[in-house]
């Protein structure tokens, strides 16, 4: 239908300079473009790529033993694992522990080994305190003299294992696995396993909150999109209001409202719906209520902006073609809101996956999501390897979900409707 495209002058005399001109013009455009996005690129690199990189690095970093007992580890390389290592290894260990005595290094070694096997910390600290050995004592006798446990080959095995420059120990721990004495990966015993359950719980709670946000947010966004602008703006302010107060304040407000003597329970009892107060706090219910409240705007805003862009003429067209209004809504309007539903759900879901304060304050121990444990390891246990590993698992789970989303939902729904 269209006219034949213009072709450039094909004569070789002109072709070269034209090409060069084109390239020069393109290059200038590219340079300008790059100059424009440079600040953003630097920002993204500094605030996103580097921290995530260092997080992933930390989840496998294992410098404590490797950096502080280099000679011992080198000698242990030649050790068969049968019986005790030879005297040279004892000598090296005694020297290196002695050197680390009184420095943070000894605490690092002790803490790291203690993670492999509780109790090793005191072994290391006690030995270091007793070092150096008296002149002329053989190192093996000396160390075993300080603590009988040095006679146990398993301890040496543990030192060797903990001495690799990187470790899967934390990442395995984050999925309830550990490395057995034999070196094979095994499941943690049932009473110690926790993170897979927590991950599933995090996922499950995020799904429930997302669905609840969608069920509440969809009619709200629809109302806002159909209301005259003035009323819609008022509603919008109400929706956005929670954004302007801190999460802590909102959570505190929910505690007041939901507690046994709180507004909701008083109302329910006054209405006669219940005789005794219903427990709404420190369980899942309270967590869900507060999370939905906090996350609703993340659902409503994308939905609203998509709905605002859907011309009412589509509904009219459907009705004019013989489709009753409700059915038209379902068959025409609803699919057109898919990009908003997808974007809102993804947003809510991903924010949910990282929730921490709300479940910590409103939930019981069985309602904590994975971020709670990341915070626990960061702040309280000061085990940043484990915190990083849990974060990496959360990141991986989020990425997998995002990939699934673009594969099955986002790509299609969004492309079709643009």
């Amino acid at each position, binding site marked *: 239908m269209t006219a034949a495209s213009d072709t450039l002058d094909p004569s070789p005399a002109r072709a070269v300079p034209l090409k060069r001109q084109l390239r020069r013009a393109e290059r200038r455009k590219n340079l300008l473009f790059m100059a424009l996005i440079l600040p953003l690129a630097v920002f993204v690199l500094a605030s996103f790529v580097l921290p995530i990189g260092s997080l992933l690095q930390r989840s496998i970093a294992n410098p404590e033993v490797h950096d502080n007992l280099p000679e011992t580890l080198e000698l242990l390389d030649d050790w068969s694992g049968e019986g005790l290592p030879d005297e040279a290894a004892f000598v090296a260990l005694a020297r290196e522990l002695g050197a680390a005595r009184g*420095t*943070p290094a*000894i*605490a*690092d070694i*002790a*803490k790291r080994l*203690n*993670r492999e096997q*509780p*109790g090793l*910390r*005191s072994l290391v*600290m006690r030995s270091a305190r007793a070092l150096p050995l008296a002149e002329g004592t053989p190192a093996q006798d000396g160390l075993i003299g300080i603590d009988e446990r040095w006679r146990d080959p398993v301890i040496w095995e543990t030192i060797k294992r903990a001495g690799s420059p990187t470790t899967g120990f934390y990442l395995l721990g984050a999925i309830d696995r550990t490395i057995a004495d034999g070196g094979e990966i095994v499941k943690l015993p049932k*009473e*110690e*396993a*926790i993170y897979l*359950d*927590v991950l599933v*719980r995090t996922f499950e709670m995020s799904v429930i909150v997302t669905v609840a946000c969608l069920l509440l947010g969809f009619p709200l966004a629809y109302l806002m999109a159909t209301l005259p602008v003035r009323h819609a703006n008022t509603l919008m302010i109400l929706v956005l209001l929670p954004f302007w107060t801190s999460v802590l304040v909102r959570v505190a407000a929910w505690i007041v409202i939901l507690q*046994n*003597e709180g507004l909701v329970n008083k109302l329910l009892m006054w209405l006669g719906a219940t005789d005794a107060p219903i427990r709404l706090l*420190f369980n899942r219910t309270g967590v869900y209520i507060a999370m939905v409240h906090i996350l609703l705007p993340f659902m409503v805003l994308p939905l609203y902006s998509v709905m605002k862009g859907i011309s009412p003429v589509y509904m009219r067209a459907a009705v004019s073609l013989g489709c009753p209004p409700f059915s038209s809504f379902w068959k025409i309007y609803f699919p057109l809101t898919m990009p908003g539903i997808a974007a809102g759900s993804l947003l809510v879901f991903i924010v949910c996956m990282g929730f921490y304060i709300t479940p*910590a304050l409103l939930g*019981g*121990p*069985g309602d*904590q999501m994975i971020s709670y*444990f990341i915070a*626990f390891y*960061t*702040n*309280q*246990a*000061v*085990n940043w390897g484990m915190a990083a590993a849990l974060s990496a698992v959360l990141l991986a789970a989020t990425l997998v979900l995002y990939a699934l989303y673009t594969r099955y939902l986002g790509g299609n729904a969004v492309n079709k409707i643009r």
Partner: protein
Amino acid sequence: MKTRLLVTLIAAIAGMSFAHADVTVISFGGAAQAGQKKAYYDPFSAESGIKVIPGEYNGEMARITAMVQAGNVTWDVVEVESPELVRGCEEGLFEKLDYSKIGNKADFVPEAVTDCGIGTFVWSTALAYNADTLKEAPTSWADFWNVEKFPGKRGLRKGAKYTLEFALLADGVAPKDIYKVLETPEGVARAFAKLDQIKPHIVWWEAGAQPPQLLASGDLVMSSVYNGRIAAARKEGRNLEIVWNGSIYDFDYWAIPKGSPNLADAYKYIEFASRPAPQAQFSAEVPYGPTNNAAVGTMDPAVAATLPTSPANLVGAFATDTEFWVEYGEDLEQRFNAWASR
């Protein structure tokens, strides 16, 4: 003209960073810090002219670690609990104390004197109940476990520490054997099995302010508590009682983060806060026991009787084993989290 302005300016800036006689003291907030302000901060400032800048934290070692590792230490004196003191000292987060600047070691309770921190008070985690709601008073952790005789919700701190000890006490383990038992896998299993018995009846608390409130409102019939919080609630007229039998006491310490910019002033503050008279005044504000042996003598006997360190209250009580918790804490907390979240 210009030069003089410059000189004045430099002098002013220099004055800001050097001549400033401020010392930043970080505690856990709440009633205890209010007591510290009265007993320590204000009198110390009045005596020395050094201003105390108070701050709060929740015992997160991560903050001190980050500060020391980054070489940007803004805290001068920190109140730390015993396991954190031990770990932090080993990891080089705290200055090794020079006792010549603090006082005579022999003047203090032996456990208070450590390499990196000097004990400032003794506090206790004990069983408490609302005397208005319970007709019969519980007397032991075995009673805490007895849900037939004492029906209702009971509170415990969300964490392995103390919780496991109380479970073993309730199961009949003698105080002196607690940590020996807990060192063994069988002992840990025994503690968790005991906890399983009352799991549905437990409300877990995290902040020390929660249990007195929950006890007063009737949501809990009994709870583990920090003894200082109960005293505060009693002052407000709540009829809450402490059962000292089976209580576990521990020390809080003053420590100096390594690289504190006001080291000399930090020592001056610690020296002041370790004298008998200020410690006695602190105990009068908050019923935590003094660490300076001479303090009890200067105290009102009525106050002394409310302290965890009074001889009557020490019957059946025992000290927490810091070494044990440093060694096994991480493992047991993980185990506890796994158990609690099921």
